[in-house]
């Protein structure tokens, strides 16, 4: 299995990588004896100096949420802004701006409802779930979508830990820790947000501006209305309407 990742990494350098090989590599991730270090190197190489196609991101999404699971949705009737981010910005190693900004935005009277969707951080970064674990003194796995739906109604604010939506995040966590940069799962992660509704909107931070166009395509394919954004400063920047 390690050979598959090594071969794929070499192919990435020659730009001969394809979706079929990605699918094989992702399947290997679910195997019992894959090497997280080699897999991490492969996943980081995918995004390093290269813009993955929409199909590749959707392949990673398909890996995280197979079709049967993806049908499970939580429909919200009220106006909700779901905030999330791909992570992977080296500038925000010690701080999670979007999580705190969502809390502050939700505290504004009459400004509708806000939901923060996030995961634990990989490498040195502070993930959204790491921060809420510290602030709320609860295990991230307790921040489920069902709990979020209830607290959205009572508080107008909720946090969802991505690994409660799909346990397959745990399969790639080892590889993510060994990756030297953001991986394709950073891009696929926010797309697994289960909340949908006519009045639901999304604001997703993207770690690199060259990824914006394809990412907007992924959001559109997923039926997410809202914006993805990036910038030179960590956490927010110029918006790119989808």
């Amino acid at each position, binding site marked *: 299995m390690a050979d598959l990742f090594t071969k794929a990494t070499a192919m990435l350098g020659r730009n001969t990588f394809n979706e079929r090989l990605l699918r094989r590599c992702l399947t290997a991730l679910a195997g019992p004896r894959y090497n997280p270090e080699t897999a991490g190197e492969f996943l980081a190489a995918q995004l390093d100096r290269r813009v993955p196609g929409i199909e590749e991101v959707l392949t990673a999404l398909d890996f995280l949420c197979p079709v049967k699971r993806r049908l499970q949705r939580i429909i919200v009737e009220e106006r909700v802004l779901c905030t999330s981010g791909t992570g992977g910005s080296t500038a925000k190693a*010690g701080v999670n701006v979007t999580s705190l900004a969502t809390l502050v935005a939700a505290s504004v009277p009459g400004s509708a409802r806000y939901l923060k969707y996030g995961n634990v951080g990989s490498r040195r970064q502070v993930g959204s779930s790491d921060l809420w674990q510290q602030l709320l003194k609860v295990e991230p796995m307790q921040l489920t979508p069902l709990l979020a739906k209830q607290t959205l109604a009572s508080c107008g604010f909720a946090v969802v830990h991505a690994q409660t939506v799909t346990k397959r995040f745990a399969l790639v966590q080892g590889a993510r820790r060994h990756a030297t940069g953001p991986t394709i799962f950073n891009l696929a992660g926010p797309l697994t947000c289960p909340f949908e509704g006519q009045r639901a909107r999304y604001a997703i931070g993207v770690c690199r501006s060259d990824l914006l166009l394809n990412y907007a395509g992924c959001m559109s394919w997923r039926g997410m209305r809202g914006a993805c954004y990036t910038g030179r400063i960590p956490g927010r920047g110029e*918006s790119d309407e989808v």
Partner: protein
Amino acid sequence: MGAGFERKLTPDNTNVLPVLPTTRKVTSTQLLTEVFAGRVTSYEARLVLASAATFVALNTGTDYSSAREAVARAVREEKPRHLLEEYSRAVKTRRGNKEDRDDF
């Protein structure tokens, strides 16, 4: 605007958002302390408020400057702290229910 500052236009050219230079690194907890106390001085804390105002503008359809004022007012009145306390209570009450713990 002082030296080192610049302005950015949003795509619809209606809202002018300030882009601030990085000054120092703080942690999320330090940030929260600043925001809760209503004494926003660091670059990162101002970034949190600017991001929050952007979210409010996106969600309510108001312009950025009105959203920025509303966010500043909420911080002065310590509303983020109250919301976090309320949310923390709601999570701790609800997490005991078995149906809430079921895997999604």
